[in-house]
């Protein structure tokens, strides 16, 4: 687990108002949507904003988001490969 993984978990908890959740509560390969963390479509859009705000990655196709946001691992991999910040 890298700093990025921790950073992401902390950002998600704050940005998406995941009350009473700690960084240690989120598994790296746990599904974020659907059954896992139970995030929904608006959360996905907020994550797209987060990608641009914190990592300078601009995503124009919301559907691509679902693949990238599958888990913390997937997100971290994508960010490492594409970040401009």
């Amino acid at each position, binding site marked *: 687990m890298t700093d990025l993984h921790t950073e992401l978990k902390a950002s998600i908890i704050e940005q*998406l*108002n*995941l*009350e009473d959740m700690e960084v240690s509560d989120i598994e790296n390969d746990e599904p974020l949507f659907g059954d896992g963390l*139970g995030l929904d479509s*608006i*959360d996905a*859009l*907020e994550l797209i*904003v987060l990608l*641009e*705000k914190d990592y300078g990655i601009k995503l124009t196709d919301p559907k691509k988001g679902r693949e990238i946001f599958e888990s913390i691992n997937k997100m971290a991999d994508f960010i490492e490969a594409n970040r401009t910040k």
Partner: protein
Amino acid sequence: MAVIWRWFLKKKDKMANLSIDHWVRIKDGKIIADGEVIFASEADIASFLKAAFKFLNIKYPKFHKMDRLSKLGFIASETVMKEEAEISEDTALVFSNNSSSLASDQNYQESIKNFPSPSLFVYTLPNIVLGEISIRFGLKSENVFFIEDEFNAKLLIDYSAQLIESAKANKVLCAWLNLHNVEYDVFLWLSSESHKKEITEEQIRKIYDADYD
């Protein structure tokens, strides 16, 4: 799907008598249900809402994503609806306030400076709280939100009466749900047709105006 021809069975138009099944008042750090103070906290609004939700003791993580107006509406409706043995999907929602969704409008407006936030934008309409309540209780009935200068009991009672008269709903959740900056003023009640004692505009006003210590 066949359309039900209710016209032949419809009663003549008459003013329905309404009763209040349950009511709740939320102001000054207190939740008052049917006349009794059931929760009190002197905390600031953010902490008050958090504590009030905890007091409700239900599992609904989506609560934390809501804006303050929706949280107030959610807590109020939860307090009243939990007294109901069975919740009908034909429960209509007739809400009103003065400030619309101002608090959320301001928050969202701030975000436009850098990155417009979709989750904040979602709440820049006063009627989103009606959606949240409908989702929570599976309500598929009529829902309307009026912007008025001040609490207008007559408007809400008349509208509810009409809904029940015309069999559009068998119960109506009415509310004055106002949030001005950090000042909240909530009065919510569940109405249904009464064959006994009818609630009057004066009585509703009295509950609203009363002090509960």
